[in-house]
């Protein structure tokens, strides 16, 4: 008859000791409230709730700074919370005169949102910080709670910086924006209410580029009947950088 191999017994002993040790340790080490509400220590909720509050939200400010809150709510900064600029306000709300929140009065802060960056959405007000009235604090011309430019920007590039800069380096550099976009003057004050037009069809570009167009001689001509078939031109040419065909430079 075969013996039960001795080495198996030798192995089982340490394994049993380890597993038993772990089971006993588990009893002592897993907190009592673990698993009551989910895969966490239920007591942690109470501990988290007893932690000091730092941010109080915009409503809290309204009790005392009613005017500013109202003003801001009607301004372009309506989506920017007070504490974004003034920091956590809890201590200030508790004792207003002792803990005064800081205010970002220098030029460093506003460009966090407003410095030019091509990936910001179309129309988002942006500036090139180094050239935009350098040396002066932003708040000397713009009210942070109701930011409007001192006068409406004359140039489309103030808000459409990316497009303006792109067009600047394209063959269309001398074609003004307004040739292709009929822009109501109100668009510069209130861009979302008064929207400029956008060319609607192939014939629009044909006004300058068709074989029989009445336009300057050096403008390259195409056969409107065959070129690009029936697609609108901007399927293939980005109108603000027309030498780019479908993304690839010629």
């Amino acid at each position, binding site marked *: 008859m075969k013996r039960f191999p001795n080495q198996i017994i030798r192995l089982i002993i340490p394994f049993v000791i380890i597993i038993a040790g772990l089971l006993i340790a588990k009893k002592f*080490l897993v907190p009592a409230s673990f698993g009551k509400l989910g895969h966490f220590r239920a007591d942690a909720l109470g501990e988290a709730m007893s932690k000091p509050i730092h941010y109080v939200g915009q409503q809290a400010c309204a009790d005392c700074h009613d005017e500013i809150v109202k003003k801001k709510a009607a301004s372009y900064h309506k989506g920017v919370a007070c504490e974004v600029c003034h920091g956590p306000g809890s201590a200030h709300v508790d004792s207003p005169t002792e803990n005064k929140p800081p205010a970002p009065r220098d030029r*460093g802060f506003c460009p966090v949102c407003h410095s030019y960056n091509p990936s910001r959405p179309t129309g988002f007000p942006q500036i090139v910080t180094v050239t935009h009235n350098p040396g002066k604090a932003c708040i000397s011309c713009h009210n942070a709670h109701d930011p409007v430019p001192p006068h409406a920007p004359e140039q489309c590039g103030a808000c459409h910086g990316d497009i303006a800069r792109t067009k600047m380096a394209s063959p269309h550099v001398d074609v003004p924006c307004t040739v292709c976009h009929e822009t109501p003057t109100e668009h510069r004050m209130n861009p979302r209410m008064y929207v400029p037009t956008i060319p609607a069809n192939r014939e629009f570009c044909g006004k300058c580029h068709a074989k029989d167009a009445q336009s300057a001689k050096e403008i390259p001509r195409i056969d409107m009947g065959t070129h690009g078939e029936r697609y609108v031109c901007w399927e293939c040419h980005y109108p603000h950088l027309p030498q780019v065909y479908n993304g690839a430079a010629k």
Partner: protein
Amino acid sequence: MESLNERLMSALQQVSGYIYPNEIELHWSLLIVIYPFITGLVAGAFILASLEKVFNVKELTPTYRFALLTALSFLFVAPLPLLAHLGHPLRSYEIFFTPNLSSAMAAFGFVYAWYLMAVLLLEVWFEFRKDLILWAREERGLIKWIHRALALFSTDVSEEAVRFDEKAAKIITVIGIPSAFLLHGYVGFIFGSIKANPWWSSVLIPIVFLASAIVSGIALVLILYTIVTLLRSEKIDMKCLDRLVEFLFYAVIIDFSLEVLDFIHRLYQSEDSIKILSQMVCNKLFVSLVIMQVLLGTVLPAIFLVFFRYSRFPEELRRLAYFISALLIEMGIFCTRWNVVIGGQLFSKSFRGLTVFKVEITGFEGILMSLALLALPFIILFVVLKILPPWRISSLPVDKN
């Protein structure tokens, strides 16, 4: 407030395009590069060892025990990068005590424990038990007691017991192969299952990880075998080395084709992330991916291996060429891990911008720590080889029953 703003501004200087605020700084650092690198070495070395045991590749016998001990030494270190990265090593027991079944990451403790306790330690124990007992019989002093304790004070070296050891080792190897696949496939799964990251999210990743693990494991054993044999002033078994090189070459080819397949797959699918990914590969990862991983770490050594394997150069030259190729391959695999881990965090999940990775020198996740962690397995291996010299054959015979 000012200093926060200044910090943000200086960080933004290194960023191109648009990225989300929490992407400026990379959260998975150098240590997380080392973690899959080391686990890969473990799995690879083990799979090499099992070639001899299960598939009876006789030429590889000289490296069998050696590969096992290499895998063991590296396995001891495998969790350390994670512990250092998480920064709370004293809490690590919690993943055993409060198992979270819905978290793949939390499964690591169990995958690791299974592989260490149920596979590697057991296999090493059965493999060395007979020798431990026989060595202890002819020794005295401390080492005798160490060997006796390691044999768990068993004394039975009858032929029947030794046969049982062999059978047990073989069964464990058979269980061990899928376990090794599981260990490293699991590491790949951790990355491959992250839907939100197109650089990682791919069902191929666990398989690519496995293939590269096998490559790195074989190369490591080749390097260590060469060095240790030379240090012992023994003759290198050239048949064994040639066979190792053949397997290494096959593994490199499989690994490379899988990577290329993954690459073509991405190109052809051309999802919305492809633009930013190709930008990243062409700029930020060009050196580490195209030059170091593909050219220096794969193509060049693969050519070297075939050329020298089938040429008639003198043995010393061939050995040198093998050795250098294996080093290059090891560097290439390290870059593979780097490109996966760091690459996956360099691009914004908005697909509109790239950030940079700045390596620290000191600090918990810095270069010094990483070098220490990479050196540790070699030190452990040195000690293990002192206690369990794989080449030592006892002069005493096995008991007859």
